[in-house]
């Protein structure tokens, strides 16, 4: 797959002619070869409707299309582009998807394969009002971005990232602020442990937890700081 982790804060993408990928604007660090960077008005894939949807959902991160033109290069070989991505000194996690769906905030997306299907999901569709409350607590807002298909995604996080597998027998509890992304067939709900101590300001500071159950994986950052 196109992304190769060079170190914890940099990934390298190899692009063949005709292939393309989307990346956050300004996230290119260096490149070799004949690569073009075009700002993407629509903020990703799909037509005008998808663009308006993303704008309304506030999931429209400025993206650019990175591609290598088709044809032969000067030496008569196929031109290949190599691009290094990184942004703001954030740690980067490459997630490879094989047909399942990744749920991630749009501003955490550093770069992703052009073959992945991009969509927007309403948090309320998973658990109604409680889903909306969950979105507020995790900082996701009312909407989140989904990526589906075969390909890989480079996701940014503050601090290192740990992948925690979720199996049907073992649900995982995650601090909403440390939550980065999840994929697979996962139900999530917000579990609260509010008590009178929290009301008087003597709580443990861990009153809200995100409980993820099903089968898949959740990515957690080693920091409670947002991007």
């Amino acid at each position, binding site marked *: 797959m196109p992304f190769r982790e060079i170190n914890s804060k940099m990934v390298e993408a190899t692009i063949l002619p005709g292939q393309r990928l989307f990346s956050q604007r*300004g996230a290119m660090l260096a490149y070799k070869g004949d690569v073009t960077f075009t700002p993407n008005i629509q903020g990703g894939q799909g037509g005008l409707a998808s663009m308006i949807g993303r704008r309304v959902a506030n999931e429209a991160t400025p993206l650019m299309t990175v591609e290598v033109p088709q044809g032969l290069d000067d030496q008569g070989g196929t031109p290949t582009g190599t691009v290094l991505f990184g942004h703001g000194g954030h740690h980067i996690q490459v997630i490879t998807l094989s047909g399942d769906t990744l749920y991630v905030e749009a501003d955490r997306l550093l770069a992703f394969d052009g073959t992945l299907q991009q969509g927007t999901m309403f948090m309320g569709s998973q658990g109604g009002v409680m889903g909306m409350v969950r979105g507020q607590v995790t900082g996701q807002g009312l909407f989140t971005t989904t990526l589906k298909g075969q390909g890989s995604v480079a996701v940014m996080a503050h601090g290192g990232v740990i992948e925690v597998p979720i199996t049907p027998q073992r649900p995982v509890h995650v601090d909403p602020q440390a939550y980065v992304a999840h994929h697979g067939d996962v139900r999530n709900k917000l579990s609260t442990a509010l008590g009178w101590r929290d009301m008087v300001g003597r709580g443990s500071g861990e009153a809200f937890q995100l409980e993820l159950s099903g089968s898949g994986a959740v990515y957690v950052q080693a920091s409670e700081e947002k991007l």
Partner: protein
Amino acid sequence: MNPAGNPSMPAGAPAPLDPMSLPSDDSVNAYTFCVELRGSQWFLQKGKMIAYYGSIEFNGIGHGRLDRLVRTSFHSPLHASDWVVAEGQGKMLLADRAFDVNSYDLEDGNLTIRSGNLLAFQPTLALKQSIVPGFLTLIGTGKFVAASNGPVVFMEPPIRVDPQALVGWADCPSPCHHYDHGYLTGVIGGVRALTGIGGTSGEEHQFEFVGAGTVLLQSSEALMAEQATGALPQQAGVPGGQGAPGQHGQRGQQPGQPRLPGQLGDLQRRFGL
């Protein structure tokens, strides 16, 4: 492992470093570098020394005794106020805002580096201002220490680099600007350029390197916010650190303030009132 025969040390804990076990002119870990001085001198940027053993004197550039040294190996009046010379006997630790720190050896070579990334260098190297603004060139033989956001990645030209990600380059004779705004041509591009619809990709301008040499890259030049050292965290429950001022202004006791009559003093704080 029970280091240095200290019975109170738990097994497996890293050995505490002392003047003997600190490395000489080598990295202690990814974030700290140790310089050994034996009557020798090192140039270092102000504020990058975090600790030292022994007797080391720090003098700013311009100190009378250093005139000869400055004449031979410091040719950057623009940065003179940012640099000091360390001199004496002992070991000195260097670090910079939790950035990755690495040392590099130059052998009769040249290397150009972003001025903010250079921490220290041996006086056997000569520091000069690069033609490219904001960069410094080191020429000669010796060791220098540089910081970077994330580990440094070495790349071979030909390559185009985002100006923010560039740490420096060695032996490349031709750094130049490269402008790429191909998407602003044609009818749609013209509309785009006129109206600003669609914005810019932010990658129109790069530094281009060709020829033989090495280019040094980092993840980003975005700096971490500097935090005042010694400040107490502003959290409830931390003695001395009151919550946000104004919010908790009425509660608790300001440390420097005289206590008002009728207050319960420390007993009050114990109950969190």
